[in-house]
């Protein structure tokens, strides 16, 4: 059972990493326009510079 001492923190850490990633994506407004992001990705002349279009 001693393995629990590091297995549980490991599970929590991995899950927590996923959670933090999700919250970060939410905060950076990546869930605001799901359609647009999908469409943009399909074009090879897509320009990342435009992302600072919003203030």
């Amino acid at each position, binding site marked *: 059972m001693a393995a629990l001492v590091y297995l549980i923190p490991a599970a929590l850490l991995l899950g927590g990493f996923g959670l933090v990633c999700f919250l970060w994506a939410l905060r950076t407004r990546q869930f605001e326009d799901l359609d647009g992001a999908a469409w943009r990705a399909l*074009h090879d002349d897509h320009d990342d510079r435009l992302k600072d279009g919003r203030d």
Partner: protein
Amino acid sequence: MTLQAPIDDAGLDAGCCTFGSLVAPAARSVAAGADPRAYAVVGADGIARLDAVVETLDCPSCVPSIEGTLARLEGVLGARVNAGQRRIHLEWDPARVDVERIVAVLGDLGHRIAPYDAARLGGREVDEVGQGLLRALAVAGFAFANVMLVSVAVWAGLAQDMGPGTRAFLHWVSALIAMPAIVYAGRPFFRSALGALRAGTSNMDVPIAIGVSLATAMSLFETTRNGEHVYFDAALGLLFFLLIGRFLDRSLRGRAFAAAQNLLALRAVSALVIGADGNTEVRAIEAVRPGDRVAVATGETVPVDGHVVAGRSEVDASLVTGESLPQAVAPGDLVHAGTVNLAAPIEVETAAAGSQTLLAEIAAMMDRAGQAKARYVRLADRISRVYAPVIHALALAAFAGWMTLGGADWRASLMIAVAVLIVTCPCALGLAVPAVQVGAVGRLLKRGAYVKSGDALERLARIDTVVFDKTGTLTLGRPRLDGIDGGAGDALALAATLARRSTHPLSRAIAAAAGDGAAAEGVHEEPGLGLEAVIGGERVRLGRGDWVGGAAPAAAHAGTEIWLRRGEAPAVRFRFVDAPRPDAAEVVATLKERGLRVILLSGDRRPVVDALADQLGIAEREGECLPSGKIAVLQRLAAEGRRVAMVGDGLNDAPALAAAFVSLSPSTAADVSQTAADVVFRGDALAPVLECWEVARKADALVRQNVTLALGYNLIAVPLAIAGLVTPLIAAIVMSASSLAVTGNALRVQRGR
């Protein structure tokens, strides 16, 4: 751009019809939106900004093509399209590029924009409540998964040989993960429950909040006492499933909210105000004052209520009055905002105070009429009113029963009460309704109908009467050539050579009937009278009978007519009808077949109304209805206990739309009507009305099934819980199984007819 063609060919367009395109065509046909110059804001940093609705955002290649093209334009600092909401945010340096140049570039790409005032509409704010729910959902999901991981070990340990020390350790791990997560993710429910209790009422969140906090507190107590059973996983599972339902419900509302804002933006119109010195200035409509002279070009929408002071023209008032014929206006005549100037430029002097405009009157009438709708109680709320007290009573009875009759100690009794609260908690109920409604709304969206709210679907499923408006609803609202009386075979061809030079609806109808061909040179348009040209040395006139002269008396005709006369020959009559929507007769017949009562209410003249009603087989009809008359009819029907769906498009229908039990409106309708309507559908067909009703009924049936399913689970689980047989393992299985069953059943709304 190399990828674009194959993508478009692959038919990706099919999947990108979001709600915005359903609302947009109104603006396309009525107004092109306000002048961007009136809405661009130059900040302190010298950068100009503009927010606008892009009505034409229909294809996957639109977003990159707009952003890419604008980025290459000198002086443009930023262009960001939000495809979901159909909006664009522009930033540019006014010293280097002009907003009109940007609009022109967008125009070349085939996009027109309707600017709006972001500050007034709060347009670019994020939906804070929705984001909060999503954050809570993420936290609950994370904690639920991890606690479940530990719980499975504990359950396995109970069946095998886990020592009490290990179990206590695992319980403490669960507690440490669960406690903060429950406090965080439970806030939406705790807040709502507290609010309800303070107001002296109860809602569905009260048993949820009590259940969750009791379960958590008891589990913590059991953990400290090294007890066998803890309910941390159940409490988190409850929150997780309920938050999914809550989030679905919210996203439905968020969509409706964004679409309503887009409608407001499309309504914002700018006016070309003529100053005292003769100079013109573009102003947002809010900045136009009574007494201002406003110039209205041919084909434009009149922006204000007022009197014509210069110019003669014809206006299309069909959206305002339901009258299908264009009206001649001359200096002194009153024109209303929302009418379209057809023939020649006019100048309008803005009439007195804003509260006296027709629009304001209509708005006041709508407020009074809309109260019936506000009284409607959603199915979920009706259930919870009965459900919540029953749960409380059961849990209390279980506690008291075990304490007194069962001979258990308070700890065991309380654990049993907690189990009752947990298994009865309305997880499945909270998911049952939103899951079906999100599915149904999504399905209708693909078919070209945009449903603004979930409870609109509930109301639509319960109608027994359908009231139609005529012009623009049962008909297409544009004239079609019906027949030609007299003249030789070339009359149509001759008329068309003149008509191709004009944008008047009747001219367009003639040109459409004649097909492609040449247009005459030197055509002169006499506002309110007709067209004139000299062809082959002879004067040719196409227009009103008394103006062209030589009109022979002819049989009366219900619709519009104009006359063509070449030289001194007898005049030829062209008859027009406002053609019904192609499938109108079929839809009306189907509705009647299904046992619905169909009524036609119109502001148009009686003979026209009768002719159409006979053609479509509608027995109950009423013509020359004022807006107040339409409301009166609806109120009479409501008093008879009928639940009425009103389908209408005009400004004159707006109060009736608000008064009806549920209302639908085509996307060509007046903005106010679209705002008042519960459902907006697009296209020339009337079939979406039928489809909406059918999907609503199907959704209603599924919701009822789901509720039955959820209650059925309780019927089995509650006796078990009261008998003290529900362990955390059983609670987890029951809860997950019922939620999955309900969600799976809800998905069926997407399928079949």
